[in-house]
């Protein structure tokens, strides 16, 4: 009997060691670094007012980011989120202008968002059209269709004293309501994804669709569920948006900056487009990162153009880092990933 | 309309296409050749045994043609000539009751004297099986009210569902259940239930003896054959399978126009439905798998006639079965009886009685 050979000690490269770190924490670190840089270079950054306004402005795209993350975790993609959010606001206000009671208007619109989510889910899951095209088309369709068929004004403003306005006005215990709302949604979303069996099945499905299906997970209804949840969250984000901005215009395309921000927030937070990877904590980190970034850019009075460039560059850097840390193995990569 | 809808559904997503299929013979029903290796008790061809009984004396009484015959020590003699095609036999107290087509139920005593037991019209024709209930009365299964005992094929192509269960008490007969799909076999359980095999529904179910038209609990469903008579033995029930399901027959039953023309223009012997024996190839079409290649007909070819019987054990599962496959001759099993350690089958297609050996 010979001696048992000892396993050689594996050397982890820097890349591998970094890759093991939870991406969300990584991004938190980057946010803090950014805050430090910001505090050092910008006046007025660290004021309570400023910080609170960062948080308040981040809530909308944060909620959209959660919606996008839920869909992306299930290996889908939802490009209609911004359209649903905008349309929610527009249609509710139009209905209220037509003398429908606020409660009824909200109910109708939420139902409408539900239907959009169902259509998205059905076409992606059962008719098997790629999610990219489907959600792109539904987003455009919804936005353009509502505009042409339903809306009559060019700009809608939130009437005083409506329930929606109450959503984000004022503060409770010193914390702005918008922030509380956002935090609540994050908490619920995190519990849903991490701790419920539905959330776990969604992640399993996103990680390896065929295995999840072979295991017995009801993959198609789950896909539909992710799109429905995303649509409902997008509707909620629409209400938050109009509540913070008090008005909404009727121009714009489905490729709204809001959509970009939502998707990039999710991707930066570690929710990989290949499905199944990432946590909502990462989305939170991504939201904060983008929020701080936006704030800094505005405080430095960069023109929109420069803002776009800088933001784009930084986001590219974040994505490049992700690609370096989690490289796609050429041999085992799934072929139809975009 | 239905066909168009299915075509559209199939085009949208091929996974939604559903086609009918016959369940395979597997597990307890896995094919073997035990029937071909079984010992023939009669010279094949002399008689056409329909049903059989083993008396306590060891003699075998079987019905063939219009008479009841006795096989004892290798010799056959006629016990009674009953004047009409004799179907099923059963023991009632010390007598043997036979169902005679056109005459009703006839009782043959131990001294071989024949007397009419019941001539009620409900049991006059098409009585497929008889069983004695615990309270002393007889339960008769009537395959169909429209066709006679040899009308199984007609009942199949006309989707007949007029089978009945009739309780006979002396001269008095009462219909206890109606609307069944050719109940071909019955056996009463000591604990008050009756097992019924519904041939056209490919099912064996249990009914309570005192509420035969009530809810039926299915025991075996979607069988790959048309179940026949049931006998209770020491270690379970033996069920005979005279006919086996064929995919083309199923297709045929789903095409009303073709079925109607077949019924109208072709001789019933030549209908493409399962049969007890395959004899006349000159008027029989072929299914591709039955083609004789290099001198061999493969055993797993699509069957037109087949020999199969199986035993259901106390756990309500099929525990063993005996087969004669497509390349064999012992087809058309109409009854299997277990008497002690002897298991004897009436192979009407083979025209003989066979004794099945233990595995």
């Amino acid at each position, binding site marked *: 009997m010979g001696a048992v050979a000892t396993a050689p000690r594996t050397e982890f490269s820097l890349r591998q060691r970094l890759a093991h770190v939870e991406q969300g924490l990584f991004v938190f670190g980057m946010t803090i670094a950014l805050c430090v840089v910001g505090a050092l270079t910008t006046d007025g950054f660290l004021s309570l007012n400023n910080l609170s306004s960062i948080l308040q402005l981040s809530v909308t795209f944060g909620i959209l980011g959660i919606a996008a993350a839920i869909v992306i975790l299930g290996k889908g993609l939802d490009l209609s989120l911004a359209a649903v959010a905008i349309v929610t606001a527009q249609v509710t206000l139009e209905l209220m202008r037509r003398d429908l009671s606020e409660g009824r208007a909200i109910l109708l619109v939420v139902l409408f968002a539900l239907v959009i989510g169902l259509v998205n889910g059905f*076409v992606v899951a059962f008719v098997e*059209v*790629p999610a*990219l*095209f489907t959600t792109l*088309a*539904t*987003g*455009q*369709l919804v*936005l*353009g*269709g509502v505009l042409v068929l339903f809306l009559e004004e060019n700009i809608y403003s939130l009437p005083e004293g409506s329930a929606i306005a109450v959503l984000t006005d004022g503060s409770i215990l010193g914390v702005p309501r918008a922030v509380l709302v956002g935090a609540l949604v994050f908490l619920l979303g995190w519990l849903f994804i991490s701790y419920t069996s539905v959330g776990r099945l969604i992640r399993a499905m996103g990680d390896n669709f065929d295995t999840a299906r072979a295991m017995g997970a009801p993959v198609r209804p789950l896909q539909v569920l992710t799109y429905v949840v995303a649509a409902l969250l997008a509707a909620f984000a629409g209400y938050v948006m109009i509540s913070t901005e008090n008005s909404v215009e009727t*121009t714009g395309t489905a490729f709204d900056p809001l959509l*970009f921000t939502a998707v990039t927030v999710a991707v930066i937070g570690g929710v990989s*487009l290949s499905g199944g990877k990432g946590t909502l904590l990462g989305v939170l980190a991504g939201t904060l990162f983008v929020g701080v970034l936006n704030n800094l850019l505005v405080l430095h009075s960069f*023109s*929109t*153009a420069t*803002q776009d*460039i800088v933001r*784009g560059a930084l986001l*590219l850097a974040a*994505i*490049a880092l992700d690609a370096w840390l989690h*490289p*796609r193995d*050429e*041999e085992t990569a799934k*072929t*139809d*990933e*975009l | 309309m239905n066909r168009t809808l299915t075509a559209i559904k199939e*085009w949208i997503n091929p996974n939604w296409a559903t086609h*009918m299929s016959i369940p395979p013979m597997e597990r307890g029903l896995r094919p073997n050749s035990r029937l071909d290796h079984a010992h023939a008790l009669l010279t094949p061809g002399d008689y056409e045994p329909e049903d059989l009984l083993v008396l306590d004396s060891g003699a075998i009484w079987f019905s063939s043609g219009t008479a009841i015959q006795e096989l004892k020590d290798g010799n056959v003699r006629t016990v009674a000539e009953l004047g009409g095609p004799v179907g099923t036999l059963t023991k009632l107290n010390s007598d043997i009751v036979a169902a005679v087509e056109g005459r009703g139920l006839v009782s043959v005593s131990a001294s071989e004297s024949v007397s009419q037991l019941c001539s009620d019209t409900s049991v006059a024709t098409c009585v497929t099986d008889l069983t004695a209930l615990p309270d002393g009365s007889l339960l008769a299964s009537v395959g169909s009210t429209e066709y006679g005992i040899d009308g199984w094929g007609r009942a199949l192509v006309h989707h007949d569902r007029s089978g009945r269960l009739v309780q006979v008490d002396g001269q008095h007969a009462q219909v206890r259940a109606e609307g069944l799909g050719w109940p071909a076999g019955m056996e009463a359980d000591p604990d008050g239930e009756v097992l019924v095999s519904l041939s056209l529904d490919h099912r064996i179910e249990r009914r309570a003896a005192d509420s035969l038209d009530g809810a039926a609990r299915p025991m075996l469903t979607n069988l790959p054959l048309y179940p026949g008579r049931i006998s209770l033995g020491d270690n379970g029930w033996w069920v005979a399978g005279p006919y086996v399901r064929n*995919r*083309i027959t199923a*297709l045929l039953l789903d095409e009303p126009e*073709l079925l109607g023309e*077949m019924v109208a223009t*072709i*001789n019933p012997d*030549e*209908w*493409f439905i399962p049969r007890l024996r395959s004899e006349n190839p*000159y*008027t*029989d*079409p*072929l*299914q*591709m*798998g039955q*083609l*004789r*290649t*290099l*001198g061999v*007909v493969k055993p797993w070819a*699509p069957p037109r006639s087949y020999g199969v019987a199986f035993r259901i054990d106390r756990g309500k599962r099929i525990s063993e079965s005996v087969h004669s496959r497509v390349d064999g001759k012992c087809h058309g099993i109409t009854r299997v009886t277990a008497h002690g350690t002897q298991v004897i089958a009436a192979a009407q297609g083979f025209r003989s009685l066979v004794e099945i050996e233990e595995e």
Partner: protein
Amino acid sequence: MFGIATRGVDAFPLTGRGWRDRLTPLQGISDVIGKRWMEGAVPLVLAAVLTTGVVFMTPVGATDAPLIMDEVAEKSLLAIGLTLVMVAGGIDLSIGSIVGCSSLAALTAFRVWGWPMEVVIPAAVILGAMLGAINGVLIAKMKMRPFITTLVTLVAFGGAAEALQSRYTNQLAFPKSDILWDFLGEGAIAGIPTAWAIFGIVLVVAHIGLTRSRWGWWVTAVGSDRRSARRNGIPVDRVVFLTYVLSGALAGLAGLLTAARLGRTDPAVGEGWELIALTAVVIGGVSLKGGRGSVVRAVAGMVVVAVILQASIAFTLEAGGYTAILALVLFSFAILDLKWGKYRLRIAEKLTIDPGRISVGPLVDVTEPGTVWSINSKLTDAPPIGLGTIEGAEDCALDDEGNLFCGDRRGWIWRFSGPDHTNGEVFARTGGMPLGHAWDRDGVLMVAVGGMGVYRVFPDGETKLVANQVRRSLTSLHDDSALRFADDLDTAPDGSIYVSDFSTRTNAAEYMVELVEYRPNGRIVRIDPDGSTDVVVSNYVFPNGICTSHDGQSILIASTGLFRVDRLWISGSKQGQFEPVMENLPGYCDNINRASDGNYWMSFIAMRTPMSDLLMKYPAVRRRMTREVPQDNWLVPQLNVSCVLKFDDQGNVLKVFWDKSLENYPMVTSINEHAGHLYLCGLLNNRVGRLQLDPEDVGDIDPRLVPGTTGRSLPFSEVAR
């Protein structure tokens, strides 16, 4: 598709059906759908339908054509670039911003910095290429995901464009003119507006490049299966990088042309163009997964989009309406294209078997005793030759020395020699399925090899092709030029060979499909001594046995599917005529051979039964059977029955032999008489039978000789090649 294609004698009327049964629309659809170029068909056809619909039903008309072409010319450059990227398996969403950047840069360079146009034009394209290169580096080199990367660069480049705009707003407002600028914007080359001409050149180059150049094949390979492409040595990274650079360059060119046409600055130039290009590309059938797509089809899709745009302008729809309609079109086309790609071949397969109706006469009951058909066991005890060694001899031939040559389903030809044919050896290997055997005028053995054609077999065992092709018929969608299923053959006195082609659609191994389909797919072909072929009878329902009549003036043809024997006159006063000999037989005929007493032998491979006759009247049920029921369960006539009959020139049946036990000689496919014995061959049998004939049945004609010839000079073993 149309049983109209007739060369020689048209045998269709023998089926007893009318002209409507000649048409097989479903089969025609299946043939067309199965063709390779149909891959992108549905989207294109629908696009064409949509366009014509819009043109006819809206105010958009011929006068709008130039406007539409302008749109198409510019945006198609984007579509072409996007096609290239998508075929390689990626996606480029930043092209809209690249257009904006380059158009603004061109204007800035020209109006503000004063660069000469000769520099501005290439610079704009190079700028686009460089922006594309940024994409390429990020995606190809750094392996970032294309979608999210180009989404971000869309925003970043857009910002750059806007920065340029805001910096130079005032200066840009002053128009400056230049000849080249005007030429680009409003000039024309040989009457075609410059932009269109440039677009046309780019389209042609891109199409040729993608479909016929090595680089184009590499792009397709990378998109279809990246891993295999890499393993095959294709430089995947470089190929992908180049696609992004090209996409950027084309976007840059488009921006330049737009700037020249509009003549003003507008930061909204290019906004939303990526979606328009994406829609056009999807309409054109480019697959999102990569590996499939054509720039021509993408441009066709762009035409549809441009037409829709014109229509929406004509209807004065707001911007929202236009995008909504476009989204709807994108949606429907994506769904249709997906389903089409998945199910095209499956649909073709499902439709290819198209059972037809045949009118049949009444069926004779062969089991009735006392007729000439009475069942007997005359064949049962014929001693076997090669029992257990032969597998499937369909036909045999005997030479002057008494050697027996027969086929084998493994592609061999056996030779059995010796007094009782006990020494068997593999004589020749054909590589196909040897079916009919015959001797030609020079005494050489000829074999019809199913799947390959007609071959001559020489005494040394070498085979030589005689003929395997005819001219393709003009009206057949399906290529019927090959002699797919050469079954039986015989020689005419003038040396030409008549061979039956069982089916132009199925091959020899799947003959049972023909037994279920009953379509007139077969034909008779004449091979002249010089090797040229000609179709003498077409639209025959599986012709099988061929036999030259005893007087050498006609050919007897047995049709398996129509249970009849016909005669084609080849010389004499009735030359070219086609007349029946026996009709409405109770069985399916196979080979015919001459008998020594001036009559003919024929075998039945199957018997008609009432059930199978009934099924012949229901093609829809047979179609359902072929689709839903496994092939093993298909209902066909009774093939397990053997029957050999002798008939005379007038069509009277003289004698019938059966094998009642069905065990020794089921399914006798051919019978050959020689020296008082009848040799029984079966396609699925493992022996050849040698039946001794009654002396009263034997005459003094040698059935193996070609009628009209007196004898061969050399025995087979001495015939030279």
